[in-house]
C-alpha cells in the first residue's frame, strides 16, 4: 500500500466512512438521477429536489456513522418500545395518505413511525439474540419471532404490506444469521405452505383474491389492476438486449408507463439500457451487498455482525421485491428501487442503515476498549 492511499483510508476512517461502500452507493445515486431525469420527461426541478434529498440522506448517513454501535446496544429496547407505541398511536390517531394510515401528526411535523421501525426492529432483534450465545435456542427464537411479528402486524394493519414485509425480513434475517436451526426454518416453510391454501379459502376477501389472480395473469385485467404490470413488461421487453438509449424509451417518454420515476423506475431503466444495462445494475447492487456482508463478517461481536448482516440483506429484499414486481414475477407491493427511485423518506432510512453499517465497520477501537 502506498502512502497516499494509506492517508486517504485514514481520512475515511477518521470520518467513520467505508470508502468502497460509499463508492457503490454514490454510483447508484448518480445512475438514479439520470434515470429520474429521463423518466420525468426531463424535469430539472425534480432532479434538484432529488439531489437535495440525496444530500440530506448522505448527511444522515455520515452523522449516523459517527455514533458508536454500542449506543444502539444500550438504546435498543427503549427505541423498539417507543416505536411500537408510536405505531399503535398511528392506528389510533394517524392521518390518511394514499388510502393507508401511515403518518402521525405531532403538531410541528408529521412522522412515519414505520420508517423508524425499519431500523429499530433489526437493532432490537440483534440485541435480543446476541444477549445469549449463538445459535439461539428454540425458545429464544420463538421469543424473538414474537418480537418481530408484533410491529409487523401493526404495520400490515395500516395497511402497508411493503413495509411490513421489509420489517419482518429484517428481523427474520437476524434469526437466520444467528444460526436458527434449519429444522425450524424447514418447519416454518412447510407450515407456510399448508397455511396458504387455508388462508385462500377461508380468510382472504374477494378483492384480495382478485389481486393475487391479477398478479398471476395480468392480461385478465389490462385496463385495471393489470395495466401497470402489462405496460411495465412491455417497457422492459421492448428494451431488448441493448436498450433504446437514454431518453429514448417510448413507453416512458410517451407516458404509457405508470409510476415512472418512483416504483416502476426499473422498467424505464430496462427499456432504455436493455438487458446489458440490467446486468450492470444488478452487479452494482451485488457489489454493495457483498461489501455490507464483508463488513458484517469482520464485525467484532455478535450484535454488530447480526445488525450489519440484517441491514444488508434487507437492502437486497428491496431490490428483489422491486425488480420482481416490476418484471412481473412478484405481486405489486409498494417498494421503491433503493437509492434510484424518486422519493425521500425511505431513502433516508436506507442511508441511515448504511450509516450504521459504516459505524460497525469503523468503530472497532471503541468496542475493544469497552
Amino acid at each position, binding site marked *: 500500500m502506498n502512502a497516499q492511499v494509506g492517508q486517504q483510508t485514514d481520512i475515511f476512517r477518521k470520518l467513520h466512512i467505508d470508502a468502497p461502500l460509499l463508492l457503490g452507493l454514490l454510483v447508484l445515486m448518480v445512475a438514479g438521477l439520470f434515470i429520474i431525469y429521463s423518466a420525468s420527461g426531463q424535469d430539472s426541478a425534480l432532479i434538484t429536489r432529488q439531489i437535495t434529498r440525496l444530500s440530506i440522506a448522505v448527511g444522515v448517513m455520515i452523522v449516523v456513522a459517527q455514533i458508536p454501535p454500542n449506543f444502539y446496544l444500550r438504546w435498543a429496547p427503549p427505541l423498539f418500545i417507543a416505536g411500537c407505541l408510536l405505531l399503535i398511536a398511528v392506528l389510533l390517531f394517524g392521518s390518511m395518505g394514499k388510502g393507508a394510515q401511515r403518518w402521525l401528526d405531532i403538531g410541528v411535523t408529521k412522522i412515519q413511525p414505520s420508517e423508524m421501525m425499519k431500523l429499530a426492529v433489526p437493532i432490537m432483534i440483534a440485541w435480543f439474540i446476541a444477549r445469549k*450465545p*449463538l*445459535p439461539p435456542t428454540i425458545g429464544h427464537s420463538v421469543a424473538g419471532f414474537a418480537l418481530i411479528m408484533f410491529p409487523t402486524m401493526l404495520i400490515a394493519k395500516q395497511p402497508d404490506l411493503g413495509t411490513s414485509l421489509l420489517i419482518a425480513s429484517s428481523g427474520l*434475517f437476524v434469526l*437466520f*444469521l*444467528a*444460526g436458527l436451526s434449519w429444522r425450524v426454518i424447514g418447519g416454518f416453510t412447510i407450515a407456510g405452505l399448508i397455511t396458504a391454501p387455508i388462508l385462500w379459502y377461508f380468510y382472504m376477501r374477494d378483492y384480495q383474491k382478485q389481486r393475487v389472480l391479477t398478479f398471476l395473469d395480468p392480461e385478465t385485467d389490462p385496463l385495471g389492476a393489470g395495466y401497470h404490470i402489462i*405496460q411495465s*413488461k*412491455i*417497457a*422492459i*421487453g*421492448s*428494451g*431488448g*438486449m441493448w436498450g433504446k438509449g437514454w431518453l429514448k424509451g*417510448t*413507453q416512458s417518454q*410517451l*407516458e*404509457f408507463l405508470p409510476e415512472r420515476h418512483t416504483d416502476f423506475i426499473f422498467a424505464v431503466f*430496462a427499456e432504455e439500457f*436493455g*438487458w446489458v444495462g*440490467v*446486468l450492470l445494475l*444488478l452487479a452494482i*447492487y*451485488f457489489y454493495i*451487498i*457483498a461489501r455490507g*456482508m464483508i463488513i*458484517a*463478517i469482520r464485525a*467484532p*461481536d*455478535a450484535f454488530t*455482525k*447480526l445488525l450489519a*448482516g440484517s441491514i444488508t*440483506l434487507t437492502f*437486497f429484499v428491496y431490490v*428483489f421485491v422491486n*425488480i*420482481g414486481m416490476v*418484471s*412481473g*414475477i412478484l405481486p405489486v407491493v409498494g417498494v421503491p428501487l433503493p437509492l434510484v427511485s424518486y422519493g425521500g423518506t425511505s431513502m433516508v432510512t436506507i442511508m441511515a442503515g448504511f450509516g450504521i453499517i459504516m459505524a460497525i465497520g469503523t468503530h*472497532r477501537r471503541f468496542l*475493544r476498549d469497552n
Partner: protein
Amino acid sequence: MLNWRRRVAIRDHLAEANLFARRVIVALAMVVVLGTILALNMRTLQVDKHQDYQTRADGNRIKVLPIAPNRGLIYDRFGRILAENSSFYSLEIVPEQVQDMPALLAALAKLIPLDADLIDDFNKNVRQQRRKFKPVILKSRLTEEEAAIIAVNQHKLHGAYIEARLKRHYPYGELTTHAIGYVAKINQKDANNLEMEGKSANYQGTDDIGKLGIERYYEEILHGQVGYQEVEVNNRGRPIRTLSEQPPTPGQDLVLNLDIEMQKVAKQALGERRGAIVVLDAKDNGILSIYSNPSYDPNLFVHGISSKNYKALLNNRDRPLINRTTQGRYPPASTIKPHIGLLGLESGLITTKTRIWDPGYYQIKDIEHKYRDWKSWGHGWVDIYKAIEESCDVYYYDLAVRLGMDSISSFMNQFGFGELTGIDIHEETSATMPSREWKYGRFRQPWYAGDTISIGIGQGYWTATPLQLALATSILANEGEHFEPKLLKSTKTQTGELPVPAIDRKPVEVDSERNWQVIKTAMEGVVSKPTGSGFRAYDGVTYPAAGKTGTAQVISIAQDEEYDEDEIDERHRDNALFVGFAPVDDPKVVVAVIIENVGGGGKNAAPVARTMMDYYFAHYPESF
C-alpha cells in the same frame, strides 16, 4: 482482535463467528440465486420475447391519423368557380393549456365581440370533450380584422389560437343553391349510410358531405381518397411527431354546363316573382341555366345553420327550399298543345286541313257542362296552326277526347312526362302523367271522358316540372332525339378536361317526318304572327324563334264565373308558362319558364323566355 475474543471466555466467539460466516455464505448464495432468477427473467422478457413486446410498444405509441382529401372544385362552363374551398379563420382554444379559462374568455371578449351564446356553447363543448389537448372552437368565421387582432395579442392569450380551416364556399350564394347544393357536417344518418356502403374508412377525417344537388350527386368523385399519417402518440393520444405519411388524393374538379352569368340573368328576369327557369343547350340538353326563385344562401348550411334560420326557411310561405325546376309539379297547361297536336297528326285524326268551329265553349253530347275556351267569344274556324298560335282550347278539348287517354298517356311518356328526366341531382320528381291505371291506383276511380278533356289543355291530373317541359320541348325541337338533361359537362384531369358524353334515350319516332315541321312552324307562328300568343313578347327578335305560351289555372272557376285577376287572392292567380326554342331550323337553345300566380303566360312568361334567348344569342356567337 483475537486477544479480545479470548478474554470473554463464556461464549465461543470463534464458533459463533464461524457459524455466522457460514450463514452469510448461505445468504449470499441465496442472493446470487435470486439475483440470477431476476436476470434470467429479464433475459426472457428482453431477449426471448423482445419482438413481441416491441410490437406491443409500437402498438401503444403509433397511431394512424387520417388526412382528409381536398374536395374537388366546381366550375361553370367558362371556368368561373362556383364552389371553392376557402380558409376560414376560427378562434380555437386548447383547454389543457389554459390555466384560468374565465380570465382568458374575458380577455378575448375585450378584443373581439363574443356573444353569451357562443361562450355557453363553448363551455358546453369543453365539458363534453374527452381529450383535453384537442382544440375547441370558440368562434368560427372570424373576419380578417378579428383574426388580426387575436394574432397581434397572441402572446397574452396562452391556449387560444387562430386556425385557418378549409370550408366549402359558394361565391354565388343563392344563385347556385338548387343546382350545386351544398355540403354540411356529416350527421348520424350520413355516417350510417357510409358504413353500409363500406365507405367509412375513406371519410375518416372528413367533416362535411354533399347534402344536395351536384355536391350530393357527385359526392364520390368530389370527395377524393383519404390519406394517412403515422404519428407517435403519448398515453393520452396526443400526437408527438410524424413517422410517415401517405398523402390524400384530392377529389376531381367538375366543370358544369351551367353559365353563371346566364344564371344571374335568370334571377334578374324573375325578380321577386316565384318561379323557375330552365335553359338547355338544344344539342345535348346540357343545362345552361336552371334557377328556382326564391332561393337561399347555401353557405349558411356549410357552417351549420342555426335552428332559427332553418325554421325561417322551412316555414317561409314562398318555400325557398323547394327546387321548383325539378320538384315543382305544375299543370303544364297549353305548353303541351304542340305535343298533342303532333299526336293528332300522327294518329291521322287530324290533318293540316282539318278545321273545327270554336264557339267559345266545348260540350260533350248529352252533358250540360260547358268546357270554356280562354277566349269566351271563341276563335271561330280553327286549324292546327291557329290552334297552336292562338292556343285554342276547344280544338284541343275535341282532339283529346277523340285521341283518348291511353294514346295520349303513352305518347307523352315518350316525351318524358311522368318520368324522371335523369338530371344529375337527386332532388327530382317525376310529377304525373295520368292514365287509367294511374287514376285507379290513386283514387280507385275509373277514368271519365271529362278527365280527358282537361288533359287536352294540360290541366286536370297532369303535372310536370319545368325541367320536364324544357326536355319535352327539346325533344320536339330535335324532332324526336332525346338526351338526358345534365349539369355536368366534364371532369378536370391533370391533362385537361374529360368531357362527359351525353346520354340518349329512345327517340320519339313518327310515321311522317313532315309532322315535326308542321308543329314547329305552328310554334314559330306563336311568336312571329301578330295573332300569336307570344308575338308581343318576341316582337323584333333577330333570330327565328318558336315557342308556346301557357296559362295554368290554379283554382277551378265555377261555370258561370269570370276569371278576374284583381278579385282573386294572389296565390290563386294563374301560373304563367312559356316553352320555346331557337333557331327554328337548327335549334341551339331551349327555354322553359314558369312564373307562379302572375296571370297569362304570353304576357308574363314569354318576355322572360325572350330575355334568356336574347342573352344566349348575344353571348354565344358560335351558335349562329
